[in-house]
């Protein structure tokens, strides 16, 4: 079974600073990968998904971008953070060929 790593676990950043969150997956190849965000007191919203290297689909307009430089690496970035970017960011990956998503441990981002 696959393992999802997310780095860092917690991040406090000032408004206007850049952002880079990393997700790496072990135990699978060519997975679909997903970034979800959970804002305080709200449910989870899909931000981006990727079906392969260099292939990114954005679900909602926002201040963030995503990249997939390697098969099992998914990066979430921003050039200038906004207060509204605060939240809990979760990377997800379905089981091999399956419909069930498994989630990484998440990165908690606080923008001040």
């Amino acid at each position, binding site marked *: 079974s696959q393992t999802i790593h997310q780095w860092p676990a917690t991040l406090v950043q000032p408004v206007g600073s850049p952002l880079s969150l990393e997700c790496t997956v072990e135990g699978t190849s060519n997975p*679909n990968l*997903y970034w*979800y965000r959970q804002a305080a007191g*709200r*449910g*989870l*919203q*899909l931000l981006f*998904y990727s*079906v392969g290297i260099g292939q990114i*689909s954005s*679900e909602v307009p926002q201040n963030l971008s995503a990249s997939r430089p390697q098969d099992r690496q998914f990066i979430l970035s921003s050039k200038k953070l906004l207060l509204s970017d605060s939240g809990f960011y*979760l990377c*997800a990956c*379905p089981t091999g060929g399956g*419909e*069930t*998503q*498994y*989630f*990484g*441990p*998440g990165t*908690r981002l606080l923008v001040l």
Partner: protein
Amino acid sequence: AQSVTQPDIHITVSEGASLELRCNYSYGATPYLFWYVQSPGQGLQLLLKYFSGDTLVQGIKGFEAEFKRSQSSFNLRKPSVHWSDAAEYFCAVGASFQKLVFGTGTRLLVSP
């Protein structure tokens, strides 16, 4: 478009009492349905899923859920709640490309 409604934001249940968390979905075809649990500060853990077949599905930690197509519902149940069940519970429906559409979540509080 798919959507999920969890009408209860908070629910308080006494330890040992039964629990039912409501979930209604909107989806044009036969849905893939999921319940996830999130303990404070943690990522999401899959409790159970429904793809097809028996409409009563069993999950981990003694949870079960029943798919009712006529009511577009997938309610989560547990006969006897333990204090460790206090968490936030998310219902989700699977969409294209294995994406998940989540409800806003129900926070379960367990009173002694």
